[in-house]
């Protein structure tokens, strides 16, 4: 019963798992655009909410997000955390900032890194823009954006970001 006994026979054996990611049509469309340096969301035909990255359906209405909505690479920090521990399998050195980035005109946020600013100056509502990798490194991945960096524009009141159906 007690766990402070001398450990019995066991050994660690690491396993290596390879998996193939099947993107589905919405994500495929999105990633094909990302490869060209463009961010294109999808809107719900009923409630008009704009999703980026689009996952193909609107969880509010349960229907396909069929309307393509081109977005800029500017937005604001909806919230963030300063992470002081490493990520398994990621060479990034702590401390670093993970933020929920809300692109302009989008109705959901996604997680990305914030850099190009002192950590203590980062705040909720701060305006940011994507910093892209060199074009020749672009692939089918949101990691084409290295991080988001602050831009000199007035902060957003994040309480205004909440989606309300028109």
């Amino acid at each position, binding site marked *: 019963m007690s*766990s402070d006994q001398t450990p019995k026979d*066991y050994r660690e054996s690491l396993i290596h798992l390879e998996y193939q990611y099947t*993107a589905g049509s919405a994500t495929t469309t999105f990633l094909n655009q990302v490869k060209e340096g463009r961010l294109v969301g999808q809107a719900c035909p009923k409630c008009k909410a704009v999703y980026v990255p689009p996952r193909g359906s609107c969880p509010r209405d349960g229907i396909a997000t069929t309307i393509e909505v081109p977005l800029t690479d500017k937005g604001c920090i909806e919230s963030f955390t300063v992470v002081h*521990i490493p990520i398994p399998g990621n060479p990034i050195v702590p401390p670093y900032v993970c933020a929920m980035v809300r692109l302009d005109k989008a109705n959901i946020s996604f997680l990305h890194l914030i850099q190009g600013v002192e950590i203590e100056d980062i705040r909720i509502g701060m305006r940011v823009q994507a910093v892209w990798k060199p074009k020749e490194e672009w692939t089918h991945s949101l990691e084409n954006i290295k991080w988001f960096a602050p831009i000199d524009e007035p902060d957003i009141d994040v*309480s205004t970001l*909440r989606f309300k159906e028109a």
Partner: protein
Amino acid sequence: MIQAGVIGVGQTNYDSKRRDVSMAGLVREAIDHAMLAADVDWDAIDAVVLGKAPDMFEGVVMPELYLADAIGAVGKPVLRVHTAGSVGGSTAVIAASHVCAGEFKTVLTVTFEKQSESNATWALSPRYPYSPHINAGAGGYFAPFIREYIRRYEAPEHIGWKVAAKDRQNALKNPLAHLQIPGIDEKMVSETPMLWEPLRYLESCPSSDGACAMVITSEEMVGSRKVAWINGMALRSEGTLSAGRDEVNPQAGIDCAKDIYQQAGIQNPRKEIDCAEIYVPFSWYEPMWLENLGFCELGEGWKLTDEGVTRLDGSLPVNMSGGVLSSNPIGASGMIRFGEAALQVMGLAEDHQVEDANIAMGHAYGGAAQFFAMWIVSSSKN
């Protein structure tokens, strides 16, 4: 609907590495305790409902099949439940639903996690092309929501330390709890390293091995046994990536709580509920859930915590057992909340018993805070 009740709760002791038992040994340990407490034998068990978090956490796919012997499911109906971290709660609700519906008289339900057999943070951090690979585990995911809560309601940072210290002080009264930190106080919490701002090391849950089991039966089978009557129970979920979702105060949590209060005839949860076991894996979730569950108005949760209302000797004790902050075998963590609530109203919570606890809440949440499971148990029937 048939009235159901809990007649036995069984738990293992929780530890970072239970290397003295296999996964099968671990679940059986909890089951043996539950069946002894319930005073039932295997022929009384009509079906088994098992829950745990993702199979990747141990690397054993569909463990309910491999565990069939250990959980006594051979030749009996068995059901597996999975709703991320809320699974322990969902599993209890689904097990009880089978009794309430009259499908089975008595159901054995068990949940577990043996985190030491793999690496949960690794399992939670796969690489997807639509997202940069920056998922630093559950704490990194929830910390921005907590920051937004603090901003919205101007809560002072010591609230998080207070919850963390309070739950670990309670754990010192629960010999099964994983973290036993003598002398734990706010200052000690505040001096531990920052992990995911604003969360410090001791404001975060541990990684534990452990299992929890319950025997749930119909009114007619209870006899003279001690029982925790299940007077309300519900599950709710919401779209993780839904536009308009408020991660700080999820609608699914609000709706789930309203549902169980209505079933149990509770008008004023703050006054009528004697104590609650709430799923708090990171300190700030105590005030956040107090508001979400309707124990107070929005923005008032941190004040209840600050005033000591949620202490073991307060007017609304929360996480008397030490909570998820003291023991976190993920798949079982929700059921421990439900089982501890049952123990309170049965008067069996020993050193962490709340005096005259007649109505208690068990609560669990999971995933990206989109899954909720709750129940109200009582010493008297609905």
